[in-house]
């Protein structure tokens, strides 16, 4: 029981970057843009925050950081980085009508390269012995949890032990779910993703919706990268540490049937599966089993893909024009 209680906060912490990515990708995909650049976007979101925070911490020197600035600067930098990624993708796909798959994969390659390049540069600048950057002061601010969490025992651990970005992730997911389900903007956005021709004929500015939702989705996803470095990894950036979380987030979108509120539970579940191998005792003589257990989230993803493709309910299908570009005068 105690092991399980300790497991939940770790699963949540693992799940939050996935949740950001998943929510962001849902917003993007609802407009009909299949952004396979998501892993790159999250990577850029992370490194941009790191760059901002690195220079801020350096400018402060050995003194104390201002908590407000320590949050605001990486946050804004991360948003700017993700936004630029979103704009590039939108420009290529919406304005120039480039193939979405190719563009997305290129964006991922670009994003990861961009992150590793600047990550490497900062590591050089910091003259550290180990190939990583430590932003402990910023991280401490990001990881500040509610003061009464400690006094609540296991209840506090499970519900109140996280930094503010974790709660932001859940709130954003809920807001996105509400907007998509209940508002006019949501209805229009869904229409754009389902059938842009119809939306266009109804007087909805398809281009604007695609741009805004793709960029908003990228910014949300970028927070996932930021959360990963600043909170989960305690402010330590090392190249390629982010791993395949971006791809997992895309898989989650399918798993949740494009429902942002479902994403909250799904991402925590996947977060748990992601680290489950650490909690399954294998003993020293069977370390190879651990490698098998690491496969669990991917196996689950594949099973989910099989089930989702078998399902016939129309509401559970991806947005109908997902992956297709829209050109009004095409005949």
């Amino acid at each position: 029981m105690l092991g399980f209680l300790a497991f939940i906060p770790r699963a949540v912490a693992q799940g939050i970057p996935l949740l950001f990515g998943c929510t962001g990708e849902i917003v993007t995909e609802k407009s009909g843009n299949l952004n396979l650049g998501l892993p790159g976007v999250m990577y850029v979101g992370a490194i941009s925050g790191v760059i901002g925070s690195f220079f801020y911490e350096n400018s402060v020197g050995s003194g104390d950081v201002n908590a407000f600035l320590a949050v605001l600067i990486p946050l804004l930098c991360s948003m700017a980085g993700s936004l630029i990624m979103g704009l590039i993708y939108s420009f290529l796909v919406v304005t120039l009508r480039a193939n979405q798959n190719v563009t997305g994969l290129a964006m991922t390659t670009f994003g990861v390269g961009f992150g590793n390049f600047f990550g490497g540069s900062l590591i050089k600048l910091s003259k550290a012995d180990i190939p990583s950057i430590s932003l402990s002061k910023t991280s401490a601010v990001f990881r500040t949890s509610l003061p009464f969490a400690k006094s609540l025992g296991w209840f506090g651990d499970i519900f109140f032990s996280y930094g503010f970005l974790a709660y932001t992730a859940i709130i954003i997911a809920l807001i996105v779910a509400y907007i998509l389900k209940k508002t006019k903007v949501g209805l229009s956005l869904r229409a754009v993703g389902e059938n842009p021709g119809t939306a266009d004929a109804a007087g909805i500015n398809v281009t604007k919706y695609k741009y805004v939702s793709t960029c908003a989705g990228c910014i949300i996803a970028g927070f996932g990268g930021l959360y990963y470095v600043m909170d989960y990894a305690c402010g330590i950036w090392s190249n390629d540490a982010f791993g395949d979380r971006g791809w997992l987030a895309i898989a989650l979108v399918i798993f949740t049937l494009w429902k942002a509120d479902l994403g909250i539970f799904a991402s925590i579940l996947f977060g748990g599966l992601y680290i489950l191998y650490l909690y399954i005792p294998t003993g020293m003589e069977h370390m190879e089993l651990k490698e098998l257990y690491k496969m669990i989230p991917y196996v689950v993803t594949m099973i989910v893909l099989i089930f989702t493709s078998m399902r016939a309910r129309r509401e559970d299908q991806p947005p109908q024009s997902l992956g297709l570009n829209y050109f009004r005068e095409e005949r």
Partner: protein
Amino acid sequence: MEQRETAVRMCGISKRFDQKQANTCVNFELYRGEIVSLLGENGSGKTTLMNMLAGIYFPDEGQIFVGGREVKISSPADAAALGIGMVHQHFKLVDVFTAWENIVLGSQGRYDVSRAKARIREICDKYGFVVDPDKKIYNMTVSEKQTVEIVKVIFRGADILILDEPTAVLTPQECERLFEVMRNMRKDGKSIVIITHKLNEVMAISDRVVVLRQGSNAGELETAKTDPQEMTDMMVGHAVTLDIERPEPVNPEKRLVIKNINVTDVEGVRKVKDVSFYMNSGEILGIAGISGSGQKELLEAIAGIQKVDSGSVVYIDENHKETELIGMHPQDIRDLGVALSFVPEDRLGMGLVGNMNISENMMLRTFGESHKWFTDRDKPRKVAENVVDVLEVSTPGLDTPVRRLSGGNIQKILVGREISSDPKVLLTAYAVRGLDINSSYKIYDLINEQKKKGVAVLFVGEDLDVLMQISDKIMVLCDGEVSDIVDAKKVTKNEIGLLMTSMV
């Protein structure tokens, strides 16, 4: 009629797409409280002209006046603001949305579900529509979807309605109901443009006819003072005989015997139920039915691309040799001489590859014939030249991707290819779907030619008038079952309509 108020005036409108001039200096006028038919062959620029009024396209040249004021309509939203609404041939509806979500979509003002539904009910009562606001579009019949489209346009405050071929997919009874609604709207002072090919509808519903030919004005007629022959001549530019010939079958013998066929689709719905019939050589068997009554599945079952639950399809050749087709490979069935040309609603879905050019599409049928390493490109090219020539396909060249051609031309290529394969049994579905008169008659002629050559023809059609004229026998399908097989010479349109809905 004396002091008519102009609702819309379009002056000197021109529009071109890439290499094709779609409209050249067209003038069009629409008055308040009238129904105008816009008539013209495929590719004559009717839909393009109206799309410019609806804000889908923007004219290269020309002026548009609405209510006497010159306006620029650069988006559908602009059009809606001017009270112009268009119901497109391919419905602009989101399938996974409910009726009311589709109707409300993109409208100005607050998002108020109950008030929106109340307005929808009000509109329905006023003009006599029947709509369930909470029904999902994908659960609707074509006629219901169309109703939603029209309600949507009125909901958004349109008093100028454009209907692009609204009757193409309706049963006679549904058409009559649509016309009733249109008359109600005219009484209410709304102006309606109806784009159509069907001359009897022009006569039945409209006050005035505007005819386009090759993107330009060909003339204007008052419906009361004209007749179908005059309209056709104006539309085509030369005299056309309107009667479809029906040569007597020459010593018919059984070619294809279908017994108790059952087909279930992927979703587990029984699409074809115990269908039995036979086809004679040199005879045309027409199939009537509301679209989705199992026509597609039946044809596919015969052609071998649809799995059959039970039943048999026996092909009997000239030497009375019998072959069971069920279980055979589609390629082998084709080699026996059973050709299928199915024109789907989107025209490109089956049989043609949009990005390939005309001769490459011809090659899709024949590439297996040459047993060499390299493909034979000359023969398909000749076939393509022939089809383009005989059917008067309007295309910049044989190397143009099929996707870029207009719908009617795409169709001619599909049907032309099937006929050129010299079949023994020809299965055609919706061969003239959306085609203009001239092209339609070309295709009827082609089919009749096949009939005279002794081919057994199965003709699935939408236009009952045509079906009754061209077929020797008509089989009426309703919900996958055969309602009846009737003699085309004796049956009336109304009887078929009732059989289609099994109300007898």
